[in-house]
């Protein structure tokens, strides 16, 4: 290995500088030739490039490609071994022993490590922004297919929720509580330098070497107009110099929906009892079916459970890294196969990544990354509100409706006579899950080519071309025999919807880096010019009325539904100039300034360019004399940053007044084409701007046994991109504009500790984050924006639940007479609301609105804790994450607690108000009076729907055993068992997932304005797996 290469990697350079200084004044003594090999703890792989120094001397060497070293040393002298990412180790040379095996311990928190930052890498100790890294190897054992699932609980200031258990979907990531009204909250994902436009869930987590989350503006501002939600940098595995290895990682297991915390619905006896009471209380004759509830003993049909299954899950990854003199290659091939816990759901991902670096000369490097993947899934329409999601439909299907008929065949649908109060026909949801096709196929190809040229030792020029190709092929087909809708008789009209979207995007980046050090001044200067382009071609065809359910083709349909058949093109482009200066003095006084200019096709012609600058500074106090003598404080750095970032997620063409040319009409049975302007232009439309200030402290105590990181941030997001509602007397509903201001602030704490060393090793990583925000302004004349059951109001936090405030039920005639009422609708036992505006009556909406803020879907704080244990060859890790103070809007109660007895009910509704003497537990009101009375409780947004959803979840428990090397092929091996989603501690009773957030159609989490709505979606399973890692 050429020592000059250490220049390439600042970390090593630093190390050598240090080593040189330390050894400068030592002398030679009586020595022997000491040899040995250095291995890494755990996998026991040899480590090349380890610095070996004889303490107090200038003698030293580095280990060769096989981890071997040879050095002259005398007995009693101390050999010091050090390497990036490992804890340095000292070894005293024993007389008579000339050969040693040295095992180095990994030290993740080691402040000499290098972190990936935007457009480069930096020594962690010199970083002045708020960044956090996770090593890919830490995430290996977690049996989940999405990177974001694996990160739950591990990152301070990053709230990651799994809003639905649908395989491969449903993750919501929010860095530092960021959101905008219409611009989304997903961070920018950058894979090997390429800000991807596709879905992060298409990336195979086994390809990942390292993940870095950039949180403050100083770290993110180089990503300019897309950085306001934070940036996640993903580095994939590359071949390492000098090492060739083959490894096989696999796990297999099964998933189940645990029985604890399920939403408790009435069984058939309880439901019949409820119905009986319903008719009795109303003074009506009890229908025959419900006269004797006990006849249903043991007859309960559990429609929800009938949709669940124990489902297998497996993952196989084969990876090869190889290295020759000029070429490093890494290949990772993975097959992931999961069935969902809802019947007929499955998710498969085939992925391959080939990363190759080719050294043309000492000055020129060429690299290729190629990562194709293919995902095929079928997920029944499990999620969504009544009549859209089959799970919601199933939970409140009457428990005395038969799933199977007398012949053991699935029924088609159930409907009882009208006098039973059965006003809906219930299709058989098991049939719906089995027969409805709802499949997506995604082909994704990520590729990069880069050329690095180093014309001078201080200068590097790098050009990259990145391309992303993503084809998404979606088909949903509803045969005539099944439906996810309520109240549809079978046969129904067979219908299909296909959607094909092809995305193509490219990015060209041209970077130039100049590094210079003189005396103790170190400079790095970066300049860059980039262009990115994206295009999506989408075709959607909706067809219905099929002659044959077996052929859901377009040509097999009798009708094409023209209204829903479209094609569409979306394009955008982005041109950017960027520059950064890193400066430090003695590695102690640190300073960084960066700026990016973004020109975007999305913005109005009068406002097309944005400038995003940042500055940051740090001071490594532990290098100062007054601290570096302290035994207790091993490292201490304070840092601060300020910068500006943007958010351009407003969609394309919003600055144009578009003409919709499909506003057709008909005259005398002949369709005529029609066209109308359907949006207003805004030539001044611009990006959303976030100004962020951050101050942080990094502390290492007791030789870094305890590492502590604290950050405080305060940011103001202004010019919020919003489709402002305007009076529709204009003929338009909204106007795209930049309005308002939200302030966010918060505290983040992270601590890593090495609790015990020696044979029993125990480390803990924990974090806790407090995020707050307040809406400071909206548009002129607008002080509020509504979501589903939410309000975003000036002076209040974003997206609060909004509705009437429940005070109880009207307990008796006197209470009713003395309380404000809903005119014509309140009765004894019905829900009683607070008269917020004091006008004596209860009104929802309009000028006399009695609504108020009734809850908060966002947590007061979130936290995570990871414990790792090792005892001999055993290892164990436990990962937990939690959230406190977040509430959920239990929206499904509008159906599952519909007091008209239309649906099956939550068990708690048995204890409702029945009379002044028998008022129940106070949650549910009287059934008497029908929809006119009960409709108020059910249909008017109110605090009865809002429930605490604080939780602590044991996300994962893994126990492993290191089998070591065996036979001549296997160099190291390990087996493990893992349980994912072991247990959730929560008081939330509306379903099993307190992280839930869903919109009516089940196709997303509801957006920023409408978080935390529970419509009873796909359960998050508990997964048991067994796995093995084998290195050849």
């Amino acid at each position: 290995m050429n020592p000059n290469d250490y220049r390439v990697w600042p970390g090593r350079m630093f190390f050598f500088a240090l080593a040189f200084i330390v050894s400068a004044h030592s002398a030679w003594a009586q020595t022997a030739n000491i040899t040995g090999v250095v291995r890494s703890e755990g996998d026991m792989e040899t480590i090349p490039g380890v610095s070996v120094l004889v303490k107090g001397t200038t003698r030293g060497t580095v280990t060769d490609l096989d981890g071997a070293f040879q050095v002259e040393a005398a007995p009693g002298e101390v050999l010091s071994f050090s390497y990036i990412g490992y804890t340095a180790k000292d070894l005293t040379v024993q007389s008579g022993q000339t050969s040693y095996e040295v095992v180095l311990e990994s030290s993740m928190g080691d402040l000499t490590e290098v972190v990936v930052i935007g457009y480069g890498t930096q020594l962690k100790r010199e970083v002045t922004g708020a960044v956090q890294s996770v090593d890919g190897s830490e995430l290996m054992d977690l049996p989940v297919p999405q990177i974001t699932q694996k990160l739950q609980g591990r990152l301070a200031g990053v709230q990651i929720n799994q809003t639905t258990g649908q395989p491969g979907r449903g993750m919501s990531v929010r860095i530092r509580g960021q959101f905008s009204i219409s611009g989304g909250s997903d961070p920018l994902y950058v894979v090997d330098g390429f800000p991807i436009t596709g879905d992060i869930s298409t990336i195979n987590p086994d390809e990942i070497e390292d993940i870095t989350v950039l949180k403050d503006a100083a770290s993110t501002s180089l990503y300019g107009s897309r950085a306001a939600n934070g940036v996640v940098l993903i580095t994939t595995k590359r071949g390492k110099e000098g090492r060739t290895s083959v490894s096989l990682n696999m796990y297999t297991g099964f998933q189940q929906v645990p029985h604890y915390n399920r939403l408790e619905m009435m069984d058939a006896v309880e439901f019949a009892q409820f119905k009986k009471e319903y008719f009795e209380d109303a003074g009506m004759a009890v229908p025959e079916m419900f006269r004797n509830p006990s006849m249903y003993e043991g007859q309960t049909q559990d429609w929800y459970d009938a949709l669940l299954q124990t489902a297998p899950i497996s993952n196989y990854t084969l990876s090869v890294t190889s290295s020759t003199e000029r070429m490093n290659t890494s290949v990772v091939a993975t097959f992931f196969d999961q069935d969902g816990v809802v019947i007929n759901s499955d998710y498969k991902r085939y992925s391959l990544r080939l990363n190759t670096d080719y050294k043309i000369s000492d000055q020129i490097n060429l690299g290729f990354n190629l990562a194709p993947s293919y995902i095929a899934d079928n997920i029944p329409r499990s999620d969504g509100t009544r009549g859209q999601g089959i799970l919601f439909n199933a939970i409140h299907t009457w428990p005395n409706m038969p799933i199977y008929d007398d012949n053991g065949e699935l029924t088609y649908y159930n409907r009882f006579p009208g006098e039973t109060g059965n006003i809906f026909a219930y299709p058989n949801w098991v049939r719906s899950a089995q027969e409805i096709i709802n499949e997506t196929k995604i082909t994704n190809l990520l590729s990069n080519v880069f050329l690095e040229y180093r014309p001078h030792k201080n200068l590097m020029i790098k050009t990259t071309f990145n391309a992303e190709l993503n084809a998404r092929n979606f088909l949903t087909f509803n045969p005539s025999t099944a439906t996810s809708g309520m109240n549809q008789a079978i046969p129904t009209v067979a219908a299909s919807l296909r959607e094909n979207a092809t995305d193509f995007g490219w990015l060209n980046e041209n970077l130039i880096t100049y590094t210079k050090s003189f005396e103790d001044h170190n400079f790095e200067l970066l300049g860059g010019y980039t262009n990115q382009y994206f295009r999506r071609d989408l075709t959607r065809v909706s067809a219905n009325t099929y002659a044959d359910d077996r052929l859901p083709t377009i040509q097999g349909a009798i009708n094409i539904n023209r209204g829903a058949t479209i094609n569409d093109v979306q394009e955008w482009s982005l041109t950017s100039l960027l520059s950064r200066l890193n400066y430090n003095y003695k590695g102690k006084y640190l300073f960084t300034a960066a700026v990016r200019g973004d020109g975007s096709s999305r913005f109005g012609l009068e406002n097309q360019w944005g400038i995003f600058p940042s500055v940051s500074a740090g001071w490594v106090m532990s290098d100062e004399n007054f601290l570096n003598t302290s035994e207790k404080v091993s490292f201490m750095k304070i840092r601060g940053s300020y910068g500006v970032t943007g958010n351009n997620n407003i969609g394309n063409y919003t600055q144009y007044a578009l003409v919709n040319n499909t506003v057709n009409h008909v005259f005398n049975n002949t369709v005529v084409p029609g066209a109308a302007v359907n949006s207003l232009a805004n030539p001044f439309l611009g990006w959303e701007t976030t100004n962020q200030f951050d101050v942080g402290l990094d502390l290492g105590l007791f030789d870094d046994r305890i590492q502590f990181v604290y950050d405080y941030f305060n940011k103001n997001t202004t010019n919020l991109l919003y489709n402002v509602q305007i009076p529709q007397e204009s003929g338009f509903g909204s106007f795209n504009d930049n309005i308002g201001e939200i302030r966010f602030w918060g505290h983040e704490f992270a601590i890593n500790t090495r609790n015990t060393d020696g044979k029993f090793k125990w480390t803990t990583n924990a974090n806790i984050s407090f995020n707050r925000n307040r809406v400071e302004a909206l548009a002129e004349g607008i002080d509020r924006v509504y979501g589903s059951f939410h309000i975003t109001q000036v002076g209040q936090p974003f997206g609060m639940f909004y509705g009437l405030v429940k005070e109880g039920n009207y307990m008796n005639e006197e209470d009713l007479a003395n309380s404000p009422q809903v005119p014509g609708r309140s009765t004894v036992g019905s829900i009683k609301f607070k008269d917020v505006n004091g006008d004596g009556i209860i009104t929802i909406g309009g000028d006399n609105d009695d609504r108020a803020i009734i809850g908060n879907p966002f947590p007061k704080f979130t936290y995570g804790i990871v414990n790792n244990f090792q005892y001999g060859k055993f290892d164990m890790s436990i990962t937990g994450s939690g959230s406190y103070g977040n509430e959920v809007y239990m929206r499904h109660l509008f159906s599952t607690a519909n007091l008209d007895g239309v649906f099956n009910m939550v068990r708690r509704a048995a204890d409702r108000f029945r009379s002044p003497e028998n008022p129940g537990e106070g949650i549910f009101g009287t059934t008497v009076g029908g929809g006119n009375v009960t409709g108020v409780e059910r249909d008017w947004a109110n605090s009865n729907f809002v429930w605490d959803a604080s939780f602590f979840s044991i996300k994962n428990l893994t126990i492993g055993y290191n089998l070591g090397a065996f036979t001549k092929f296997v160099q190291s091996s390990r087996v493990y068992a893992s349980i994912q989603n072991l247990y959730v501690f929560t008081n939330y009773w509306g379903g099993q997932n307190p992280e839930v957030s869903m919109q009516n159609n089940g196709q997303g989490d509801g957006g920023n304005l409408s978080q935390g709505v529970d419509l009873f979606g796909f359960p998050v399973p508990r997964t048991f797996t067994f796995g093995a890692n084998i290195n050849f």
Partner: protein
Amino acid sequence: MKKITITLISLIFVFSSCDDFLIITPETSLSSATFFQTESDFQQAVNAAYAPMRNIVNDRMWLLTEMRSDNTIYARNILFGATEQQEDLSDHALPEADGITTNVHVLNQYRLDYLIIARVNQILTTIDDVEFDQASKNNIKGQAHFLRAYAYYELVRYFRNAPLHLTPVTTREQAALPLSSEAELYAQVISDAQQAVQLLPNRSAQGIGRATSGAARMLLADVYMTQKRWAEAETLLKDIVNSGQYQLIPEYADVFSETSANKNNIESVFEVQYLEGPEGMHSTFLYNFMPRPISPAELRPITGTSNTQPLDGQGNNIPTPDIIEAYEQGDERLEASIAYVEIAGSLRENKEYPYIKKFAKHHSLHGNHGMNWPIYRYAEVLLFLAEALNEQGNSGEAATYLNMVRNRAGLANSTASSQDEMREAIFRERRVELAFENKRWFDLTRTDRYMQVISDFAERAKSDPMRYYYPAGATFRNHAFTNITKHYALPAAEAEITPHF
């Protein structure tokens, strides 16, 4: 090495030289800057201005007019309570405060009228800048004026005061205007309708189904009738009668549109057009008018569809016993207008419900039919003419026109002789001839009879709720009929975002 450096640097410049890289116009949409340039553009634009009429008539108008009157009612299914907004309209219990209501149907009606207006404004402010055939241009402008007159006429009758937009809104600041007075709105309606009369060709020269000079005259006459400008109305109505373009169809039952046949017939002056099928231009009003919950077996004989689905919820626009009684003995229109269906799922003892038959025509698929909706029929021209003549003291001539309508229905000539008798006879005749065609409520308001008629109706209904389709033991809500008003309050969702109301 130098070569590579040069290549790299030149690459940078290749990319930096393109400012156009950032200008991307939509490939699959046109923008207002490039539209409104040709005759075809304006033809498309005026077609689009008709489109909201389909929604207005199918989903809103009968809720805000017919079910508001004593002709039809909301038939409660007490097991189902989620649709109280329709019930509020039917039983005059709209929540209202400070001239604002949260009722969503009122809101949607308001928005749909302004959608027509915005589209018309876009046409009328740009069309004269483009040169093309004058006859074609006049026709398009005439249709545009007709549609704007129609929309503002709806607004002024529903709300009395409303914003008056006559030019297209292009910025956020222009979106909200102050309320204009009833007089200002009527002046605009009359001006637009007069322009339409001038510009439009007559029925035989116009494309079938489009607004004609006859339709424009009828609209203007309607406005004059409301304003009691009888002589002016008479002139216009006589023009229509004398045009020879329209006549009564011999059988009343044959007057109404089938799902694809019998549209725009000789009796039709103006109707809203629908098309059965997957084009998305079908109507569904028949389904809205069914008593519920109704099973496929019960529904199939009415709709004739092959894939009949059940309908849940509550019944809308169900004929009242009052309208059924309003037909004279021997009136052929009763059987043509109303039929009965037995609903097993009903909680009532008497499971038989009347439904509107005049629009119930067989079609192929559930929830998708093509029947057009009559806005103006020649029979109404005759009844208006009778009324205009009678109000001017010419009861004798009025009888001629009244009797044309009566005789067609199988009834003898009216026995009314005095002006008052004749006024009542015409009023009654309008009720049955035009039953369920959304005329009754505006007849009640323009004659200022709404308070009396609805109060009497309320008394009858509340004293015998079972007759008004309540199951035994159930009755009207206790605030039913407490808010009988001539006009609707303005919609709350709009009030929240306009500074003007």
